[in-house]
């Protein structure tokens, strides 16, 4: 009971924390306290958070192994650039268009493939992701393999930050709803949940489409920050990178996905000097983490106020 009466207060606290964090970084940015290298890292961080959290919805919560997330990111990126740079429409139209296109692609890919299970689904989504890339490579309208260069920089800190927060909120709220419980039940036991009268296909497709839309959003933000997009950027290795973040953070843990995304982004930056050795270090990190903590950093638990109150020795 206490929980409920306090919930508005806590909510307000959350909002204040979020806004404070935003304003703090915004101030630091405008005061020139953050050098360019960290500005880019900050951008990659937000984009990676969106990708990891959205892939976690599919892989972690729904338990459907998807290896085609980069394909949806590519669609979001390309469609939005066509809207903003070729058609000269405002950024918001690009964002909506990119997300919508990625969502539709998610639906088209998801409906037939989500009947498949486990590794078959993994390979089918990987195949779709690669097909998207090959098709982009052969479309002259978007310059084929050379990609689109000179994209107007429209992605700014407010967009990045609130897009990431928006993604997290939508997914956290989805998972706390009856939809979320249905989705988790699919992961736990698909046959049983079907027997309980849950239309598993519908929920799997729903999760897949939402995940794809946010991958599209990440693509939009990526394209309008990094100046150039090429089909090659979105190959299956990119999907692997996202999967690594999700598993490293802990399948089915949104906070885990966030932490892992931030960690991987900084790791990448820190290792720039080490040439090929960086990839060896990265690989070893993966292997060691998996051997000693196969459930990922967070397992399927969330980092929340409760975790902290536990640490402070507060009431249970």
């Amino acid at each position: 009971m206490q929980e409920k009466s306090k919930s508005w207060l806590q909510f307000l606290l959350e909002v204040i924390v979020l806004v404070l964090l935003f304003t703090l970084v915004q101030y630091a940015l405008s005061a020139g306290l953050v050098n360019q290298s960290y500005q880019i890292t900050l951008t990659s961080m937000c984009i990676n958070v969106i990708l990891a959290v959205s892939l976690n919805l599919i892989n972690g919560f729904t338990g459907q192994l998807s290896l085609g997330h980069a394909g949806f990111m590519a669609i979001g990126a390309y469609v939005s650039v066509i809207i903003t740079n070729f058609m000269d429409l405002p950024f918001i139209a690009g964002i909506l268009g990119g997300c919508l296109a990625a969502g539709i692609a998610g639906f088209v890919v998801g409906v037939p493939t989500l009947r498949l299970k486990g590794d078959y689904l993994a390979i089918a989504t990987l195949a779709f992701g690669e097909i998207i890339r090959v098709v982009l490579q052969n479309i002259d309208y978007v310059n084929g393999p050379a990609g689109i260069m000179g994209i107007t920089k429209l992605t700014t800190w407010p967009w990045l930050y609130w897009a990431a927060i928006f993604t997290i909120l939508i997914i956290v709220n989805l998972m706390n709803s009856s939809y979320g419980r249905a989705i988790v039940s699919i992961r736990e036991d698909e046959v049983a949940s079907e027997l309980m009268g849950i239309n598993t296909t519908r929920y799997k497709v729903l999760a897949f489409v939402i995940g794809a839309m946010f991958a599209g959003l990440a693509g939009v933000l990526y394209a309008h920050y990094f100046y150039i997009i090429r089909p090659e950027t979105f190959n299956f290795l990119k999907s692997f990178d996202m999967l690594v973040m999700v598993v490293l953070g802990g399948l089915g843990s949104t906070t885990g996905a966030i932490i892992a995304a931030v960690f991987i982004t900084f790791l990448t930056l820190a290792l720039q000097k080490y040439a090929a050795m960086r990839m060896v270090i990265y690989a070893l990190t993966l292997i060691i983490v998996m051997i000693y903590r196969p459930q990922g950093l967070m397992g399927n638990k969330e980092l929340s106020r409760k975790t902290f109150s536990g640490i402070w020795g507060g009431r249970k």
Partner: protein
Amino acid sequence: MISRRNKKLAFLLAMMLVLSIFAGCGGQAGEEEPGGETATIPVGINVELSGAVASYGSNARDGAVLAIEEINAAGGVLGKQLEGLQRDCKSIADEAMSVSAALVGENIVAQIGPLTSGNVAGSTPIMMENKIPLIAPAATAANVTVDEKTGETRGYIFRVCFIDPFQGTLMAQFAAENLEAKTAAIYGDTSSDYAKGLAAYFKETFTEMGGTIVAEEGFVKGDRDFNATLTKIKGSNPDFIYVPGYYEEVAPLIKQARELGITAPIGGGDGWDSPDMISVAGAEALNNTFFTNHYSSQDTDPKVVDFVEAFKAKYNKEPDSFAALGYDCVQLLVQAITEANSTDPQKITDALANIKDFQGVTGKMTIDEQHNPVKAGVIIEFKDGSQTVNTRIQP
């Protein structure tokens, strides 16, 4: 539960919107003063050391490092030693941008690399914003140095290599005039914008000169089996086959073409230039093949001979064109620093834009107003396992 959550969400979204509007008014970050008095001259080497094109990046890096060592051994520039800061951009454009930003933070006076046009594009906005020159060893796409939308030259971006139109046109003329080809097949690397560019200009010029393109096929980077497409091309029986791409794919391709009994002359661009061409394809298969290049590594010009010897001594391998171009990037930069008599990036940029008759390993070059090098081209023919200069074309 849900409705309350939704209310919260709506409230939060509204907050976001309001805040974002305020945030939009924020000013831009101030710029740091680059340069300053340092003991060494830091030069960024932002190249692909891992990922798909790691072999090009590391070869260019080797060339650049050799040049830096030679210059330092000879007393450096303006009495200071050059310091090469090597960074890996993973063959990804966004990483190239991130690396450039990190290098700018280390007060570099100029950046060498990345190799591919796409990765240079990733690096471009950072260099432009910070007004620090970038010298690209091998980015051949026309829009690397020129903004296609406005037609303006990108002020801080330079290169030491040919641009796509030059090589494609050159080979088309050579095929039509010297080889008297009436029909040609194009079989290029479609995953590379470089090869696609060459193919497009070859096609344009060749058809303008009255020739016919009888087949257009493509392979992608990493392919090693070309038999199927070659069998198809053989059926169309062209007088000439144009194979723009890099030696890693082209060498086995030519070998397989000859094994299938294709005897037509085959031509390509500077991506062919590597000692591996002969060791993979073999001397016999390479007979009757031609490629456009800046120079020949078997040139007797002392500058070339010295470079090849020094490279072999240091790395125990023969330099390919990337190594030579990486070497020239550093040499060009040094000439610019000397002419500017300053390590100020802006002054170096101005000097770079006015470079005339710079004698590099890959030929004598003058930087034009679009920041492209104007340099002589050669058509090199493989004859029984050695490169011979067939035709020299002055710009």
